[in-house]
């Protein structure tokens, strides 16, 4: 039986992601852990997150999990979700500038103020709800997920990688932004697959069967 470790670093509830992983692949053992050894021994690792980046990085640095995640990023399939995606970049503009894990080269920025759609209506921040995910190139995690499927988003910041080649998908709000990153054995999404019904479960299932190669 393969094992997936969901990293628990005290930031919010992990109930949904654990249940969704169990649902997506009942044959996989899902563990929710903060212990470095257990994370390093798992076959795959999910790095979730909600809330503010400063609290997130503080928790990761104090617990030593920052280094554990860097090790995982070099050795096995890693899935970053939402704040867990943003934390992979070099730094974030949130909380007056916060250094992050620097696993993927680039920055996290806020949506510009006073965005409007083509009809002149104010676009609300946070970007909240179901938006289309446009896959830029084939990847094992997109298997059986139709192009431009809608996933559930809730965020005010987004990743801007320095190397455009790591962008795995974009979403428009109103301009295209990076909503998924793929770099070797690391995959990360701004949206919430655990809250995106059938397509979300499919993405989790794909991750749970991914060997980390593209």
């Amino acid at each position: 039986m393969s094992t997936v470790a969901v990293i628990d670093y005290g930031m919010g509830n992990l109930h949904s992601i654990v249940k969704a992983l169990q649902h997506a692949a009942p044959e996989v053992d899902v563990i929710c852990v903060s212990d470095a050894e257990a994370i390093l021994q798992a076959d795959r690792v999910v790095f979730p997150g909600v809330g503010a980046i400063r609290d997130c990085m503080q928790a990761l640095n104090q617990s030593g999990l920052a280094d554990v995640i860097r090790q995982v990023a070099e050795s096995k399939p890693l899935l970053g979700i939402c704040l867990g995606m943003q934390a992979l970049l070099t730094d974030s503009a949130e909380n007056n500038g916060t250094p992050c894990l620097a696993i993927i080269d680039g920055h996290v920025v806020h949506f510009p103020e006073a965005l409007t759609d083509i009809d002149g209506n104010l676009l609300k921040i946070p970007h909240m709800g179901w938006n289309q995910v446009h896959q830029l190139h084939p990847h094992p995690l997109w298997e059986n997920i139709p192009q431009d499927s809608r996933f559930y988003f809730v965020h005010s910041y987004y990743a801007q990688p320095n190397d455009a080649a790591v962008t795995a998908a974009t979403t428009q709000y109103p301009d295209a932004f990076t909503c998924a990153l793929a770099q070797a054995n690391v995959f990360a999404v701004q949206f919430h697959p655990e809250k995106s019904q059938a397509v979300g479960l499919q993405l989790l299932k794909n991750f749970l069967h991914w060997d980390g190669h593209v």
Partner: protein
Amino acid sequence: MSLAKRIIPCLDVDNGRVVKGVKFVDIRDAGDPVEIARRYDREGADEITFLDITATHDNRDTIVHVVEQVASEVFIPLTVGGGIRTLDDIRRMLNAGADKVGINSAAVFNPDFVREAAERFGSQCIVVAIDAKKVSLANEPSRWEIFTHGGRKPTGIDAIEWARKMVDYGAGEILLTSMDRDGTREGFDLPLTRAISEAVTVPVIASGGVGNLDHLADGVIEGKADAVLAASIFHFAEYSIEQAKQRMAARGIEVRL
């Protein structure tokens, strides 16, 4: 290609059972919340909101169990409102699998509670529920005030100013209910919805008064709502969520089909 407008069925839950009040009286039993949530999920609901109307404190745990069960098999966002008064109430709901909590009266009694909640758990999970009622006369410019206790107690607080203040305090979303329309099936209070939606930077969910599918579309087109919430038209299977989405799409609204 853009963000879809959301349809959110709301389940009023009393002691673990779904009920829906018409103007908060004449409550009818519409069944098991887990069963209903499953059906809404299958029909394409974009989120589900539970409003806990359990009166007695002793029975408040029933909603936690409902959320736990639903969150174990329904993988769309879940919001729980009703009786959220402390940071511990919020933590319990989030741990049970809720993604957002709705804060209503507690925000009116202590606005700093919203600030503390947003700082602790993040704005993305803090929905401030506003119950508003028109207080201006027919020949005056429209003005709405906040009411508490199910629309019975006026507070003297202007609804638009209140919405702006709650966003400043960290609300990530506003759930706006017209107490004049709630239970009437006459449609949303569109001028109120539009006034609030244009006054704040966060998404606004329109609620109160939906009697047919065009009311939902009106809430988005004329009320400028980012999401529309309804209870009774879905509970008694008058309309399915799917029909609601098709109607909205036919009126040119982007929805998740």
